[in-house]
């Protein structure tokens, strides 16, 4: 097993696990954090493929646009933490 394969497996596992966390976490903001992690992992995979430009644009466009997702997440969803007193 070479180092390159090891790094690839790590990044791919990061992308897959965070993609699963996007749909499985109960708090919408945790989903958004997982989504950003997924995008960054995919950008790192692009770097491994010697496609630096695609990786940079991936971060610039997708991770930047996650903010808009957060905005909609805050505006359009109910927030449990604010309401429960005992947490």
């Amino acid at each position, binding site marked *: 097993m070479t180092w390159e394969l090891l790094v690839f497996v790590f990044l791919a596992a990061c992308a897959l696990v965070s993609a699963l966390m996007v749909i499985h976490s109960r*708090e919408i*903001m*945790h989903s958004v*954090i997982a989504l*950003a992690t997924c995008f960054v992992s995919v950008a790192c995979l692009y770097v491994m493929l010697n496609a*630096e*430009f695609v990786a*940079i*644009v991936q*971060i*610039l466009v997708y*991770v*930047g646009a*996650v*903010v*808009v997702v*957060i*905005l909609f997440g*805050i505006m359009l969803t109910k927030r449990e*933490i*604010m309401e429960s007193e005992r*947490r």
Partner: protein
Amino acid sequence: MNLYEFCNIIIVWLVDLVNNLWYWLGDFLPWVFGDFFTGVGDLAASDGHIAVMTILLEVLVVLIVAIVNVLNFIWLDRKLSGRIFDFYGPYYVGYRIGGWLQNIADGMKLFVKEIITPRDADRLGFILAPVIFVSSSFLILATIPLSPRFGIATNIDGAFVPAGALFAFAAFSIAPFSILLAGWSSNNKYTLIGGMRSAAQMMSYEIPLLLAVASVFLLAGDFGFVGIVEAQADIWFAIPLFIGFIVFLVCMAAEVEVTPFDLPEAEAELVEGWTTEYCGMRFGFFMMTSYLRGYAGGALATALFLGGWNGPAIIPDEIWFLIKAYIVFVIIEWMRWSLPRVRVDQILNLGWKRLLPLAMVNLLIAAGLKTLGWF
């Protein structure tokens, strides 16, 4: 000799020094133990180990230079604001060097304070937000070379990465995410309002910023810092693209949230904006990182518009770069302490109706100059 070769010499010397000990132990101890220490020595002298240690030393050198500059910037900011408001600024701690040590005293004070996580905060986001903010901001500095020989973002051949300048702006664009995350997860209405304002402001000012930068890319025909600076050997881009330079400075002030655009942390309206619930060294990191982004903004303006390290050869290239970055920072600070804050209902008007058309005109000018064949 560039930074990599310099660090390589130091690391090879250090590895030789330490390997004397391992090989002496290998000779001295019997059988397996001796073989073990000889193996450690061989491993330490291998090419891969030396390359990794060299890169780590390079990162350390660049980090130390950046942090010393950030300390200078904080000191300069406090001194300038003091002079503009007619008081002395930091004075007593290290008064022989103009109160320079005040920052270190403040940092030590923040370092020993208790770190409190509010009970109702969202723990994951609350802890993760400073980490993302600080790491993405330090990532900007990794891409900015102070001269062709002083920088770390190089590929395996030693040449700088082809899209370094674009990468700096990609790293810039991660920050609104962490700011909104911090504002939301603190579970406080002031932080949430601050985070929302910050997201709106940063997202809308990033577009004219990137359009102004796109005109520079167009004129230089390159995404990397070295190519852009070499394209400015004859004339600085601030002269043909003067509108773009002004747009860049204003948008950079908005991106690093200094006073004409410090709505996200407006002290009079929101307590401390999106950093209200943070205390101790987490707040210290936010504070230091905002100045670090100011330094990165000055360095980017220098590299993209003010000719980077070009200058008469009396002074070394790196010093030229830093002088220009300091001048840009002083101009931003002057603006900061002289102008009143933009009101919350005016901020998006300014961004979308004034700066965006100006950036478009600037892009048009750049395209015209390129078509005429002047660049």
